[in-house]
C-alpha cells in the first residue's frame, strides 16, 4: 500500500493505483475524457491534469501516473483549472458544437465539462472537420466531426470485444478514427463503442431523435435473451422502452452488452405484439375478450382434470420468470394432476437436469462466471460459446488478454475465439466430443494424473472400466484429431493448477446433453478441478432463465411425458389439450414436419405468447402475454445467479403477464386463492426448492444471489460413439448466430438488421467444389426435408461441414433435423 496526500486528504491505496484511482477512492473527482476504468490507461486528452508538489508543480495526467509514497497532489489549483479550460477550448475548436440536434446532449462529457468549466468563449479559431457521416448501417451512426479522439471506441473494440473495427487513421491534423479502408462500419454491432463514446460521435440510430436524455426514466432489470444474465438499464418515455442505457457500474460485466441485449429491446414495443386474446372461430383466429378466452381455456383444463390430468400437457419457454414457472408447474402437477410438462425439447436442459444432477447431485454448474477470469486453462467446448453467450465471450477475451488464461477451444469449426492471442483450437469431427473427452479421461488415468481426492468419489472403478475402448490412438481417427493432440490436451488440462470447462447449451445443439456434460464432469472430478476457484464446469443454459426452469423442476418427473413424448401424444391423440407457453416448437424443435403434424392434430391448442408465432397460428386460443419489461420476478442465469427483473412499463395493449394469467388459472383449477403477488410465490419457492432455501425476494438486492450448490459427486460413465458419416453428404451443424437468441430476437429490429435470415456457412473448398459464392442459393436435403439457404463462404468451416443457425421461421433448418447431433445432408446449387 502507498500513502499520499490529495488536496490535503490522506489516502492509502494499493501500489498499482494511479493518481486518478487514488483520488476516486478518496471521493475526489478528477474530470476525465479518454479514461475508462475497463480499459488500459491511454493518457491522450489531458483533461485529468493535476499538480504534484514533488514534480515542482508540473502538470501531469492523473489517469496514467502511478502513485508514489508521500506524493502530494493538487487537483484543482487555478493553473490546473486554466489548463483544463485550454484543453476544452482546443477540443471545441474543431467540434461542430451542434448540441441542439445531438442525441448525446445531456449525456455528453464534453458538453458537461464545457459547462462545468464555463468555457463560454474560445481564444482560438480553426476550420471545422468536414468528415462524411457514416449512415451505412442501421444501428450505429458515426459522425467523426464530433469525435474528440479519445480512442475509447478503438480500445474497447480491441481490448474487450476483440473485434478491432477501428483504428486511428492518417497522421497529424488529418488523423481520425476509422475502419479498415476507411469504409463504412460493418462489425458485430455490440454497441460497446457507442456506450463508451464520451460525445455524440457514435450514436444509436434506433434511438435517434426519440427523446432527450433528461426526459427518459430508467429502470434496472435483466436482459431477457441468453443465460448470461446481463443487467440492463432501460430508458423509458411515455410508457415505451426507447433504448438501453449504459451504466459502467452495472453487473459483473460493467455494463457491457451484446448486440441482442443492446438493440434487441425493440421487440417490447414492436407493432407485431399481440394486444388482445384470439379465439379460433370458423377456422380463423379472431379477437376475443379475456373473459371469453379464459373461460374457453378453463373449460378445457377442467375437463382434462376430471379425466385424470394425463390428457393435458405443457411446453413452456425458459424465458418466463421463476415465479411464473413455479405457478405453471403447480397448475399442471397439483391443480390438474398432470406430470406432462417440459421445456426446450429437452436438448437445452438435459446436460443439467440429467447430466449434472446425476454426476454432481444438483442440476447446475459447479462454477460461476467469475471463475472465467480466475482460471489458468480454459477449455471451451465449441467456438459457438461466443455466439450463444456473447458477453461471456467478452469475459473469455479479457481472461486471455489480461490474465494470460491459456485458451483451448475444442470445436467442430473455428470461430472468433480461435483468433485470440495464443489460443489453440482443436477442430474435431462433428459429433465426436464425447469420444474425445473420454479419451482424455483415459489418458489422465493411464498417466497417473488423477487427483488424490478422486479415489474417494464413488464410481471410479466403473469409470475406468468404461474407458477401455477409448484409447487416444483408437478414437483419434473418429475424432479427426491426432492421438498426440488428445494426449497433450489431457496432460495440459490435468496439470494446470486451475482449469475451467465451458459448455454452451441450446436448442441448436442437440449433442450437448447428458453424456457430454458427464464426460466433462468426469474430467474435472478426476483431476480435482471442482469446488475450487477458477475450476469446474460452467454449463451455460441457453435462455435468460434456463437455469431457473431447471431449478423450478420444469421437466418431466414421476413418469410424465417429455417434449418429444408430448408431441407424439398429440399426434396419437392421447394428449388432447396442449398448453404452449412462450415456446415456438414449429421453428425451434427438431423435425418441423412432425411437430406441425402433432400440433395440427391435437384437439385443443392453447398458445400464450407475445407474438403470433408460427406455433400460435395453429392455436385454438391465443393469450397475449407480456414481455420482461412489463413484469416483476426473478431469472436465474448461468452460474446460478438469481436476479430481480423489474417492471419498466405497463402491459402493452390488453396483454397480461404470464404470472397474472397463470395465477388466475391456477386459482380457478385448484379451487384456491391466487397468490397475492410475485414475492409471495418467491417465498413459497424458497420453502420448496432446497437450493433457494433462506433466500428472500427482498434480499436479492441489485446484483442478485448465487444459490449455494451442494451434493455428492460421483463418476458416471458417458457413452460416446463415433458418428457415422454418409458418403457424398455434408455434416450439417445447427446452432446460434451471434445476433440472435432463440426465436425471440427475430422481433427485435436491431438483430434483424444485422442478420435478417438464415444461411448455410461452408468452407472455401466446398464452395469452389460446388461452384457457389456468397449469397448463392443452396438446396440442403436431408432424410426429413429440404430447405433453401443463402451460402456464406467462410474460412472457419472445415471441409465437408455446414453450419446453419436455427432461429428463423422461413426455410427453417428444423425441417432437416431430427434431434441428432449431426444431420447428413445433400447440398446442391
Amino acid at each position, binding site marked *: 500500500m502507498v500513502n499520499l496526500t490529495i488536496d490535503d486528504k490522506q489516502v492509502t491505496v494499493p501500489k498499482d493505483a494511479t493518481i486518478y484511482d487514488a483520488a476516486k477512492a478518496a471521493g475526489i473527482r478528477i474530470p476525465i475524457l479518454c479514461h475508462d476504468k475497463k480499459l488500459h490507461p491511454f493518457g491522450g486528452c489531458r483533461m485529468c491534469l493535476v499538480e504534484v508538489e514533488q514534480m515542482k508543480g508540473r502538470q501531469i495526467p492523473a489517469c496514467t501516473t502511478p502513485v508514489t509514497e508521500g506524493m502530494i497532489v493538487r487537483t484543482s489549483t487555478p493553473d490546473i483549472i486554466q489548463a483544463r479550460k485550454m484543453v476544452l477550448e482546443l477540443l471545441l475548436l474543431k467540434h461542430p458544437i451542434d448540441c441542439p440536434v445531438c442525441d448525446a446532449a445531456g449525456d455528453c462529457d464534453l458538453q458537461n465539462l464545457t459547462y462545468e468549466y464555463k468555457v463560454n468563449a474560445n481564444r482560438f479559431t480553426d476550420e471545422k472537420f468536414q468528415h462524411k457521416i457514416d449512415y451505412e448501417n442501421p444501428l450505429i451512426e458515426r459522425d467523426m466531426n464530433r469525435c474528440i479522439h479519445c480512442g475509447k471506441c478503438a480500445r474497447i473494440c480491441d481490448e474487450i470485444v476483440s473485434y478491432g473495427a477501428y*483504428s486511428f487513421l492518417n497522421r497529424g491534423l488529418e488523423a481520425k478514427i476509422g475502419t479498415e479502408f476507411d469504409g463504412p462500419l*460493418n462489425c458485430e454491432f455490440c454497441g460497446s463503442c457507442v456506450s463508451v463514446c464520451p460525445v455524440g460521435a457514435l450514436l444509436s440510430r434506433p434511438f435517434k431523435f426519440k427523446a432527450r436524455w433528461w426526459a427518459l426514466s430508467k429502470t434496472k432489470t435483466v436482459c431477457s435473451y441468453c443465460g448470461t444474465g446481463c443487467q440492463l438499464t432501460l430508458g423509458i418515455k411515455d410508457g415505451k422502452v426507447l433504448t438501453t442505457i449504459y451504466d459502467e457500474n452495472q453487473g459483473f460485466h460493467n455494463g457491457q452488452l451484446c448486440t441482442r441485449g443492446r438493440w434487441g429491446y425493440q421487440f417490447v414495443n414492436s407493432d407485431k405484439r399481440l394486444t388482445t386474446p384470439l379465439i379460433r372461430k370458423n377456422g380463423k383466429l379472431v379477437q376475443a375478450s379475456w373473459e371469453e378466452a379464459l373461460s374457453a381455456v378453463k373449460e378445457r383444463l377442467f375437463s382434462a382434470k376430471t379425466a385424470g390430468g394425463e390428457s393435458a400437457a405443457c411446453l413452456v419457454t425458459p424465458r418466463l420468470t421463476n415465479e411464473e414457472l413455479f405457478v405453471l408447474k403447480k397448475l399442471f402437477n397439483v391443480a390438474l394432476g398432470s406430470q406432462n410438462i417440459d421445456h426446450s425439447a429437452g436438448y437445452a436442459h438435459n446436460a443439467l437436469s440429467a447430466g449434472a444432477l446425476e454426476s454432481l447431485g444438483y442440476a447446475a454448474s459447479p462454477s460461476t462466471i467469475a471463475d472465467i477470469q480466475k482460471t489458468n486453462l480454459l477449455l471451451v467446448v465449441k467456438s459457438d460459446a461466443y455466439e450463444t453467450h456473447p458477453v461471456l465471450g467478452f469475459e473469455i477475451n479479457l481472461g486471455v488478454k489480461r490474465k494470460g488464461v491459456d485458451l483451448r477451444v475444442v470445436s467442430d469449426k473455428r470461430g472468433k475465439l480461435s483468433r485470440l492471442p495464443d489460443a489453440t483450437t482443436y477442430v474435431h469431427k462433428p459429433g465426436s466430443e464425447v469420444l474425445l473427452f473420454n479419451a482424455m479421461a483415459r489418458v489422465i488415468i493411464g498417466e497417473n494424473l488423477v487427483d488424490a481426492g478422486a479415489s474417494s468419489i464413488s464410481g471410479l472403478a466403473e469409470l475406468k472400466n468404461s474407458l477401455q475402448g477409448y484409447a487416444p490412438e483408437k478414437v483419434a481417427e473418429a475424432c479427426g484429431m491426432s492421438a498426440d493432440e488428445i494426449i497433450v490436451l489431457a496432460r495440459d488440462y490435468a496439470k494446470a493448477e486451475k482449469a475451467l470447462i465451458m459448455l454452451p447449451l441450446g436448442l441448436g445443439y442437440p449433442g450437448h446433453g447428458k453424456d457430454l456434460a458427464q464426460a466433462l464432469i468426469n474430467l474435472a472430478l478426476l483431476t480435482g478441478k471442482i469446488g475450487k476457484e477458477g475450476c469446474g464446469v460452467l454449463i451455460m443454459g441457453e435462455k435468460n432463465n434456463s437455469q431457473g426452469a431447471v431449478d423450478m423442476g420444469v421437466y418431466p418427473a414421476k413418469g410424465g411425458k417429455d417434449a418429444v413424448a408430448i408431441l407424439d401424444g398429440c399426434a396419437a391423440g392421447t394428449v388432447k389439450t396442449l398448453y404452449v407457453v412462450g415456446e415456438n416448437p414449429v421453428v425451434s424443435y427438431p423435425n418441423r414436419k412432425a411437430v406441425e403434424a402433432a400440433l395440427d392434430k391435437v384437439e385443443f391448442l392453447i398458445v400464450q405468447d407475445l407474438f403470433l408465432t408460427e406455433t400460435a397460428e395453429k392455436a385454438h386460443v391465443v393469450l397475449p402475454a407480456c414481455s420482461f419489461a412489463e413484469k416483476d420476478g426473478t431469472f436465474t442465469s448461468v452460474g446460478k445467479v438469481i436476479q430481480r427483473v423489474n417492471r419498466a412499463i405497463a402491459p402493452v395493449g390488453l396483454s397480461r403477464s404470464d404470472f397474472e394469467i397463470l395465477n388466475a388459472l391456477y386459482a380457478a383449477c385448484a379451487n384456491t386463492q391466487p397468490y397475492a403477488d410475485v414475492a409471495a410465490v418467491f417465498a413459497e419457492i424458497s420453502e420448496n426448492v432446497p437450493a433457494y432455501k433462506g433466500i428472500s425476494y427482498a434480499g436479492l438486492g441489485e446484483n442478485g444471489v448465487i444459490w449455494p450448490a451442494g451434493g455428492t459427486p460421483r463418476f458416471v460413465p458417458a457413452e460416446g460413439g463415433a458418428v457415422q458419416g454418409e458418403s457424398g453428404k455434408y455434416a450439417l451443424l445447427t446452432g446460434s448466430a451471434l445476433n440472435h437468441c432463440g426465436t425471440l430476437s427475430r422481433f427485435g429490429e436491431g438483430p434483424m438488421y444485422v*442478420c435478417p435470415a438464415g444461411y448455410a456457412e461452408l468452407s472455401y473448398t466446398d464452395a469452389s467444389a460446388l461452384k457457389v459464392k456468397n449469397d448463392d442459393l443452396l438446396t440442403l436435403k436431408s432424410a426429413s426435408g429440404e430447405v433453401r439457404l443463402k451460402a456464406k463462404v467462410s474460412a472457419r468451416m472445415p471441409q465437408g461441414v455446414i453450419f446453419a443457425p436455427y432461429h428463423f421461421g422461413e426455410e427453417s433448418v428444423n425441417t432437416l433435423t431430427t434431434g441428432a447431433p449431426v444431420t447428413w445432408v445433400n447440398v446442391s446449387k
Partner: protein
Amino acid sequence: MSNAPAEQTPTEEIDLAAANHIIDKYLTLHGNLMPVLQGIQDEYGYVPKPTIDLVAERLNVYPSQIFGVLTFYAQFHLKPRGRYIIRVCVGTACHVQGASRIVETFFDKLHIGHAETSPDLRYTFEKVACLGACGMAPLAMVNDATYGSMTVQKVEQIIADYNQRPMKK
C-alpha cells in the same frame, strides 16, 4: 456466426503468391508487420487490398490496425502507382516562377490530377512542397531525374520523352 472481416472473400483479383512468400519469410519475427508491409509494397508497388486481408489473417492483426499503419506512414501507397512519378514543386520560389502553369499543363496533357495515376499506370502526378533546389525554379522531377527552369514546352518534351520509355523496370 463470426463476422470477422478477414474471413470475407477478397474482391480485387491479385496474385497473392508473392505476398504469401513475404509473410512466410517474416512469420516468426517479432514485430513483423512493418517489414511485411514494406516487402509487399516493394513487390507490388503499392499495398493491394487483398494483401491487407491476407496479412490480417495470417499475422492475426485487425485489418483496421493495418490500415492505420498504412495511412500513418507516407511511404505506403494503397493504390497502384505509375511507372514514372512526376513531381512538380509548388513551393514559394517555384510558385513565384509560375509553377501553377506547369502543374496545369501536366494536368491537361496527362488527364490526371494531383496524386492520381493514369489508367495505363505509366504516370503518377504529384504536387510537392519545396524540393530544395529553389535556384532552378520552377522545378519538376520524374522519378529521380530533375528538370529545372520548367516551361510549357519542356512539359511537352518530357511527356513525349517518357511516352517512349519502357514500362518494365
